[in-house]
């Protein structure tokens, strides 16, 4: 069991006037002991640590990173990375972006696979992994993860946008839900176009999710823009670049024989990619429309 705790980080509260939040990381778990070094990175130095991956965290409002390494004789070293993001929505976003494995019940959302534990809690995203394999070290990773999660006192909210997408009754694949804050990240998960034809920017947010329809995967994208004009401009831009053959309609059968549908609902854009039938696409759009603000009245 984790028995020793050290103050690893003191961070400011999310809002002025709040009491400073003290985050503890474990100093020992499963026989692995912290080497005592407290590595810190900010947005200016994160590239030194990531060597190419820092954009992901910066896109989600990265504040700072604390890295602790743990050692045990004749065993691979274990690393804990504690990322403070600007909000719990951002922490969820980082977690969701690379989620692919099964949940393990740590923090507010977690996954464990291939020796890598990832979870989020409050405005923190945490990654725990080892430099090697083995039953003992995997057990230590989980113990380290649980202790780290316990050290984060406050829970946080998931992005509200998640509440508008259709659920499992329409074939939602839970692990596929991504909360996205930029065009680059969207393209990483589902390539649409190398240019930003949906006009995503710092003021937009999007949810991408996969649905199994008739044993075939369809992608659903929901984007919220700051206002009606921006969603309208994005709709026109998408139609022109992606569906030039739609001939005034909001749909087209693409080269793979599947359907792409796009709709504007006030400040929202809804797009279905790869639906096996037009009815499948319509079902996803209808279910979302009913959940959106004012949806029942339309």
């Amino acid at each position, binding site marked *: 069991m984790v028995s020793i705790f050290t103050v690893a980080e003191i961070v400011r509260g999310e809002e002025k006037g709040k009491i400073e939040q003290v985050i503890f990381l474990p100093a020992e778990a499963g026989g692995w002991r912290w080497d005592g070094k407290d590595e810190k990175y900010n947005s200016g130095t994160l*590239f030194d640590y*990531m*060597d*190419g*991956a*820092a*954009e992901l965290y910066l896109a989600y409002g990265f504040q700072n990173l604390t890295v602790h390494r743990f050692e045990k004789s004749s065993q691979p070293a274990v690393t804990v990375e504690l990322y403070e993001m600007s909000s719990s929505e951002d922490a969820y976003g980082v977690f969701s972006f*690379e989620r*692919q494995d099964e949940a393990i019940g740590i923090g507010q959302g977690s996954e464990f696979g*291939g*020796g*890598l534990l990832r979870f989020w809690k409050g405005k923190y995203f945490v990654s725990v*992994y080892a430099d090697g*394999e083995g039953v003992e070290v995997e057990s230590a990773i989980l113990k380290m993860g649980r202790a780290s999660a316990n050290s984060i006192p406050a829970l946080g909210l998931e992005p509200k946008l998640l509440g508008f997408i259709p659920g499992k009754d329409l074939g939602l694949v839970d692990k596929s839900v991504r909360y996205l804050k930029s*065009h*680059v990240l969207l*393209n*990483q*998960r*589902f*390539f*649409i*176009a*190398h*240019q930003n*034809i949906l006009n995503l920017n710092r003021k937009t947010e999007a949810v991408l999710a996969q649905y199994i329809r008739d044993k075939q995967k369809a992608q659903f994208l929901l984007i919220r823009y700051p206002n009606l004009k921006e969603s309208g401009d994005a709709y026109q831009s998408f139609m022109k*670049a*992606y569906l030039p053959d739609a001939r005034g309609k909001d749909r087209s059968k*693409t*080269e*793979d024989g599947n359907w792409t549908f796009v709709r504007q609902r006030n400040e929202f854009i809804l797009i279905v*990619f790869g639906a096996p039938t037009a009815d499948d696409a319509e079902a996803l759009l209808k279910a979302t429309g009913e959940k959106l603000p004012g949806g029942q009245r339309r």
Partner: protein
Amino acid sequence: MKEKIVTRRDFLRVAAGTAMAATLGSGILGEARAEPTAKVVLIRNAEVLGDQGKIQGEILQSMLDEAVKSLLGAPEPLEAWQKLIKSSDIVGVKSNSWGKLPTPRELEMAIKRRLLDVGVPDKNIDIADRGVLNNPIFLSATALVNVRPLRTHHWAGVGTCLKNYIQFVPAPWAYHDEGCSSLGKIWTYPIVKGKTRLNILSALTPQFYGRGANFFDKRYVWPYKGLIVGTDPVAVDTIGAHLLRTKRIGFFGEDRALDVPPVHIMAADKTYHLGVSDLSRIHLIKVGWMEEVLI
């Protein structure tokens, strides 16, 4: 001139076209070949990895020799290399030093051996990855040999030959946007433009799947024991990406998505005109061990 927007539908179109070409047979392929084509050599040897994966240098040298001979239609390795490199050239061998899957030292040495055989003085050859912008050989190079391992990559989808030149710009991260679609632009800069004589993907132990920039998972590395060699970097990368995709489908039972699709390969063809990204227009010459060749 307005830049063409490459969308997902361009990929769907290519996939549909390739499938249709295969279905309709040689007639439509014959028409396709009226456009520029490329030649790529895939060579494999079952013995190149010994106990505990130790690379057998002599076998690797013979694989490289056979590949270059086949590529250039020369009877001997020296003649083949003489078609690529002059003794007066200053040669930079652009390697890759990523700690978890670097370019094998034995492969670097095999290349250098043939450069010396051609008559390039030792002092006019260097092998490097990071730091090429401060390397006097690379700064004055008249010829480049591009060599790196074949693997998936967080920002580019696949880490292949086109991606390997990202160290030739001072801010590599500036090319990560849009699936690294602008990587081809680097090949138009004076420090590299027109200098690359040979592109080699080490497929001895490729990594066919992964996620995150620093995540290396041995489960997704397999002993393919091959090299992919060509003068066209886009065609070499296309074959490499095709191999990794085929392996993913076999392993997972589906084409499990990478962190990003390798859009930069098609962009290198369609936007920067660096080579051929259409599989139907690439002549793949397969040499050596063919067990589980996959492509």
